[in-house]
């Protein structure tokens, strides 16, 4: 039976609690409090209530029929996380952690963000529960994702630009950790993805599993059975693990994670540690496959989508790859953009550039499969935030 992480937070050789001593008691307290409330009926009921009435769950599953017909192969279904309040799956986890923060008496929350979706989700729940909110965001990402920066500010959050390193998600993580070590007693770190020190990979996964748990009920209702393949994009991998985890022990469901191939794996300019077989290393509190040079320095990644532009990946994905339960592939920038356009034109849905990677892989494999096969793609977010990026690439001034 698949049962990870172990009690010390390890997913096989991956995961763990690689943090500075000052923060170890904080992650230990978080672990204890999470385990205490995870199965608490009142906590579960409040989480379920918020997901239903505030987020708008369950998110529907939609048969992308025109797109599927155009490809002439397998049927593509979309899990519509883009329809959630705030426009992505990130809110599921942000609510879960905010409810925990509330019970732990923390009035100040911090977050890192790449594309800004987790920052917006955190700013949203902070407003919802009356907490002070600080969001760390790479200066480069602030440029790429201006609308989300404005949304966070409207919601009352302070957005702190991070100028160090590559000025993207990993540097925002570093800065959030520095804040946490300084304000450890007053502050709850709402971590955005299923990575970081234990218990975050487990906790974020558990909160995101609502995606896969709903799908497991919805697919049989729609088509009388489970899909043949589930597909999701993987940066840190929270939307993916949320969809995948409930399917791990379902036989005959193939699991495919799609990483950001950037300019192509061969170019070295990508953010696909699993596809590129990156060496195992330690960053941001956990041991994972990590893009690094021969001296163990973390290398700069590239992706058109800020949310996937990260050198590591959650530990459970590393394990799923290692044990062969999931397969990981990369989709390049241009393939993701083509998928973005296809979904706009065939289905009237503007997907996030992150989710466009998952969609692109479905578009790639659908024609090679029979028409009665079913691909379930997690449409993890909507593309409103990407208007500037896409316009710039198309040479259009807004």
């Amino acid at each position, binding site marked *: 039976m698949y049962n990870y992480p172990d009690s010390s937070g390890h997913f096989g050789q991956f995961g*763990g609690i*690689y943090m500075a*001593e000052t923060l*170890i008691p*904080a992650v230990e307290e978080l672990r204890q409090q999470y385990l205490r409330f995870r199965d608490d009926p009142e906590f579960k009921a409040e989480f379920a209530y918020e997901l239903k009435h505030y987020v708008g769950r369950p998110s529907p599953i939609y048969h992308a029929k025109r797109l599927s017909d155009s490809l002439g192969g397998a049927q593509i279904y979309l899990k519509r996380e883009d329809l959630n309040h705030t426009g992505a799956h990130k809110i599921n986890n942000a609510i879960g952690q905010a409810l925990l923060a509330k019970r732990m008496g923390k009035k100040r929350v911090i977050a890192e963000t790449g594309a800004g979706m987790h920052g917006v989700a955190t700013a949203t729940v902070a407003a919802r529960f009356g907490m002070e909110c600080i969001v760390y965001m790479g200066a480069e990402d602030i440029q790429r994702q201006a609308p989300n920066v404005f949304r966070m500010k409207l919601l009352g959050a302070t957005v702190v630009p991070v100028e160090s390193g590559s000025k993207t998600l990993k540097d925002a993580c570093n800065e959030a950790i520095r804040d946490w070590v*300084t304000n450890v007693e007053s502050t709850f770190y709402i971590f955005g993805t299923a990575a970081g020190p234990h218990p975050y990979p487990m906790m974020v996964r558990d909160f995101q599993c609502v995606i896969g748990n709903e799908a497991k009920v919805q697919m049989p209702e729609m088509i009388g059975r489970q899909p043949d393949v589930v597909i999701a994009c993987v940066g840190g991998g929270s939307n993916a693990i949320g969809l995948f985890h409930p399917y791990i022990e379902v036989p005959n469901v193939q699991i495919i994670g799609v990483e950001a191939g950037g300019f192509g794996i061969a170019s070295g300019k990508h953010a696909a540690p699993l596809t590129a077989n990156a060496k195992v290393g*330690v960053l941001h509190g956990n041991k994972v496959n990590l893009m690094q040079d021969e001296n163990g*320095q973390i290398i700069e990644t590239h992706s058109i989508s800020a949310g996937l532009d990260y050198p590591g990946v959650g530990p459970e994905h590393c394990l799923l790859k290692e044990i062969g339960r999931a397969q990981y592939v990369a989709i390049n920038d241009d393939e993701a953009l083509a998928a973005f356009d296809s979904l706009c034109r065939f289905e009237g849905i503007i997907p996030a550039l992150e989710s466009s990677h998952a969609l692109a892989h479905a578009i790639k494999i659908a024609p090679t499969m029979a028409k009665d096969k079913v691909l379930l793609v997690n449409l993890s977010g909507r593309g409103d935030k990407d208007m500037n990026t896409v316009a710039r690439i198309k040479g259009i001034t807004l």
Partner: protein
Amino acid sequence: MSRIQITFDKLKQQQRKALIPFITAGDPSQPLTVPLLHGLVSAGADVLELGVPFSDPMADGPVIQRASERALKNGMSLRGVLGMVAEFRKQDATTPVVLMGYGNPIEAMGWEVFAQRCAEVGVDGVLTVDFPPEESHEAFEHLQRHHIAPIFLLAPTTNEARIQQVAKLARGYVYYVSLKGVTGSGSIDLSAIEDKLPQLRKHIKLPIGVGFGIRDAATAKAVAKLCDGVVVGSRIVQEVENSTEQNVVANVSKLVRELRQAIDQ
């Protein structure tokens, strides 16, 4: 007996406290690191903490972050740092050298190769900021095999059970982080240190060094009265940053001499 133990034993006999300065290897340039280390010793340093630069120094404030960036730009690697220690040892066989940094460069090299190289070049201790005792089993085993001391951090947030855990694993000395924050931040709370130390001493029989937030001679003097050694990092790295390649050794030596005098008073 290890160089670290010999050093602390000697200081104890003399009723003096250890001065433990930190610099980042390769900052401001690779050729200046070994001269800087010798300068630190001449100015009165007892133990040297040599920072191994890392691309993502999560526990460090802006001063040491910038030093790491400069060092990496200068091509500094873990391999290179080990070479510098070998070079340093040609002229100094007695001053303990502790490598301080993050775990990933060592993971990339492999702990066994690293520990063996440490023993060959004359490294005495290793402190990996992001490897708490829970994740240090492998590291500990390899370091122990080659008689390299694993140095552990304790923090104001560390509870008694964890102090006991560290007491079992630590060798050389224990580094008490005097404040909640990154390196170079905040200002030190002497009474808080004074309150915490008896709890530490109850379990830790090794010398205890205190660091983080020690910016001037007066603070160094006050802290020295409470513990066995004073660690000064960001203030020295700041001096490196503010100096030219021509005067950096002289400037840093002058600062360390002031700290030495204050501690010995």
